[in-house]
């Protein structure tokens, strides 16, 4: 429990997490406002449309927050002080992953419900609301997806140690690699089915959604999709812990 408090103090005593959180909220809720405002009055604003900002931009900024939480420790050498105080290392790094994941979860929930709430305020006649289980997953599911993405980013931050390198890799992967994999002849589509963010999208949006970005082609059920996504993040974290433990600090 001490170590969770440690990481909480570390995270909230610097400015960048606050800025990243604000930017995530602004992007998610702001994008919902833009879509709500731009939808013609004779057509309906759908619930998934209010959530595009979170699932598309929000994840990226939350991963920046999470990566920075560990790479700045390497940048300013406080990671060495941390390892001096916690020589087994893994407990400190796990505590960091947990705290960052919890913060990402909270940001995700505020962002998703904020976006939905603003949509409902702006389009009171469009029958927006949490009517089905899929609706619930689409909105409340953003928090867990943010949390798992954050763990992935923490793991990558531990492995790469440099802010610019870790963030560049995360964003290039997130924004480009998963899409480009589909261009590989024959096997591309099959690989894409198992790419982590594509699978996470299956959990959030299911496969019945027709408007907005193409629905996920993952063959997993939404529940298994979330478990798969979490599993990948945990594997990365375990690898990172193993490397950090053996590496000279």
């Amino acid at each position: 429990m001490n170590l969770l408090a440690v990481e909480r103090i570390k995270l909230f005593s610097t400015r960048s997490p606050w800025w990243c959180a604000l930017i995530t909220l602004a992007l998610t809720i702001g994008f919902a406002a833009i879509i709500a405002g731009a939808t013609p009055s004779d057509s309906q604003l759908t619930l998934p449309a209010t959530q595009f900002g979170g699932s598309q931009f929000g994840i990226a900024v939350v991963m920046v927050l999470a990566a920075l939480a560990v790479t700045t420790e390497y940048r300013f050498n406080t990671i060495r002080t941390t390892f001096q105080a916690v020589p087994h290392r893994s407990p400190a790094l796990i505590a960091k992953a947990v705290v960052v994941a919890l913060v990402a979860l909270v940001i995700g929930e505020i962002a998703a419900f904020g976006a939905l709430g603003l949509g409902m305020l702006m389009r009171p006649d469009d029958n927006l609301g949490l009517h089905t289980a899929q609706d619930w997953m689409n909105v409340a599911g953003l928090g867990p997806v943010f949390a798992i993405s954050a763990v992935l980013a923490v793991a990558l931050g531990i492995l790469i140690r440099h802010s610019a390198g870790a963030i560049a890799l995360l964003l290039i992967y997130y924004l480009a690699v998963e899409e480009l994999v589909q261009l590989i002849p024959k096997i591309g589509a099959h690989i894409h089915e198992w790419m982590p963010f594509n699978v996470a999208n299956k959990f959030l949006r299911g496969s019945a959604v027709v408007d907005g970005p193409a629905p996920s082609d993952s063959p997993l059920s939404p529940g298994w999709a979330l478990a798969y996504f979490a599993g990948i993040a945990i594997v990365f974290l375990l690898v990172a812990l193993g490397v950090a433990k053996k590496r000279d600090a």
Partner: protein
Amino acid sequence: MIEANALTKRYGATTAVTELTFTARSGRVTGFLGPNGAGKSTTMRLILGLDSPDAGTALVDGVPYRQLEDPLRTVGAMLDATWRHPGRSGRDHLRWLAATNGLPDKRVDEVLALVGLTSAAGRRAGQYSLGMLQRLGIACTLLGDPRVLLFDEPVNGLDPEGMAWIRQLLHTLAAEGRTVFVSSHLLPEMAQTAQDLVVIGRGRLIYQGTMDDFVAQTSEHGVRVRTPHTDELRAALTGQAEFTEDGGAFVVSGLDSDRIGQLAFDAGATLHELSPITGSLEQAYLDLTRDAVEFAMPAASPSEATR
């Protein structure tokens, strides 16, 4: 107590530390001396479990560092005062560090007062001067009231007042029975601070012992003798000692001044001067580490070669 036993550490092709064995006792300030690049910081990282040795062991009060429970309560170490997040206040830096080992926030305020940083504790550490960062670093080492303290070049870049403050603090800590292990590449600084001395060069042990012995062993550089009776003295000294002669002045090595005086008296040589030459401590250190400097200056200026 700190014990290093045959510590060896390689980074790729370079060997930073080679079979280094030494002890730093409790209740003493032990100076850890060596030229830049001698392996001092590496040794400290090995002691603190930050790096893993390729061979050998380092024990703190008989235990490997990584086996210590709540290590800050046993060992306080400042390897580099700039290890802090510039956007975080000094107090918050201490708060998270205290929390790692279950130390109360009250202790944070105590150490802030101890190092005289209370009024600046709320400011972001990025705005601290080097002197304030050193004080913050020292506050970190004192958090857990540890029995063993390590400082890597704690006076580097400090003004004379700051140096005096740190020197006084190290003495106080040792007088309380703690083990104080402090590195420097400056011997004069160490001579004022340390009671024991560990000298390394190129990662190998050159000397371990007390500062007093080190001074005694290394500072005898011969005896200067002047006489009008040069022939008599030359005859008396020949075969007894090595000497150089310049006019009426001799510099004799290998004999102490009592013995030379007696020889001169027996030979009937009047002496106008008989004085031991005590080489400077700095010179002794330079002699000792001359072969162990990693990046020697070109030979054109030999006096600069070992700086």
